[in-house]
């Protein structure tokens, strides 16, 4: 077993263990931190696979962005140190069983599948290649998805702003110029129960 493989197993083990901790620890802040480690683990896996660019993106976006976002939202929504309510035992058990079965099932299929490589080309990922292809409209170019994603980000931004922004009670100019209060009357929402 080469050093490389040892490293791989170590990284993998770390990643999985921290991931497991992230989804089981009762304290939310710790959970976030475990997630952070797990994501870093994944990033190191990328490093190990020599796709440094992805690893970098992983760290920047996930570790630097998403996890921070999550931590902020934790701060915003509750006491970070508090223990979270435990899942109902039945559900936990059932989920664990389902997940274990799913895993066994999936991995069984994967391990039985004979993956075949279609080309023996060396795998070279230069940042510049990625950059070029990213903005290339022709063959092997990814300009279109790039644009699509950019619109997605724009839309997400707009959505976030609208939703998360604490909406001030602001005046909307109506047709006749008279101001009306923006938030509408909250109508009584009945619980829909059909008597059966």
């Amino acid at each position, binding site marked *: 077993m080469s050093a490389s493989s040892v490293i791989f197993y170590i990284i993998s083990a770390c990643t999985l263990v921290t991931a497991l901790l*992230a989804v089981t620890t009762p304290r939310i802040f710790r959970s976030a931190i475990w997630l952070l480690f797990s994501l870093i683990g994944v990033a190191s896996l990328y490093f190990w696979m020599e796709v440094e660019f992805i690893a970098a993106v992983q760290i920047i976006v996930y570790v630097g962005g998403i996890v921070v976002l999550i931590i902020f939202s934790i701060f915003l929504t509750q006491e970070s140190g508090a223990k979270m309510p435990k899942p109902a035992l039945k559900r936990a058990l059932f989920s664990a069983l389902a997940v274990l079965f799913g895993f066994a099932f999936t991995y069984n299929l994967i391990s039985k599948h004979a993956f075949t490589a279609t080309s023996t*080309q060396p*795998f070279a990922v230069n940042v510049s290649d990625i950059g070029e292809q990213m903005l290339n409209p022709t063959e092997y170019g990814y300009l279109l998805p790039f644009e699509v994603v950019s619109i997605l980000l724009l839309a997400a931004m707009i959505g976030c702003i609208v939703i998360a922004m604490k909406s001030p009670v602001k005046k909307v100019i109506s047709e006749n110029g008279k101001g009306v209060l923006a938030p509408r009357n909250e109508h009584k929402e009945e619980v829909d129960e059909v008597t059966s």
Partner: protein
Amino acid sequence: MQQIPIEHILFVSTALFFIGMYGLFTRRNMITMLMSIELILNSVNINFVAFNKYLFPGKLDGIFFTIFIITVAAAEAAITIAIIINLYRTHKSIDVEDATELKY
């Protein structure tokens, strides 16, 4: 490096996938659910990169897919968090069990 069979990498990703799924099934806190989703997406990313690198090195499909997934995940996370925050405003809680008004 060739001595690591691709199945092992896939083992890691699959395991990560199901760990994330377990979290999604059991965690009652919405933010932790979001975290679980991120784990799922990461496992997929590992898949893509591994496939691309070991099986189909000719094109960078997998790599680019990974990049886009990460981006989409970011957007998704942002919207999710926005929604959670809004939900927190209305419900004063981010426990999924508290947001079960709509049912049957």
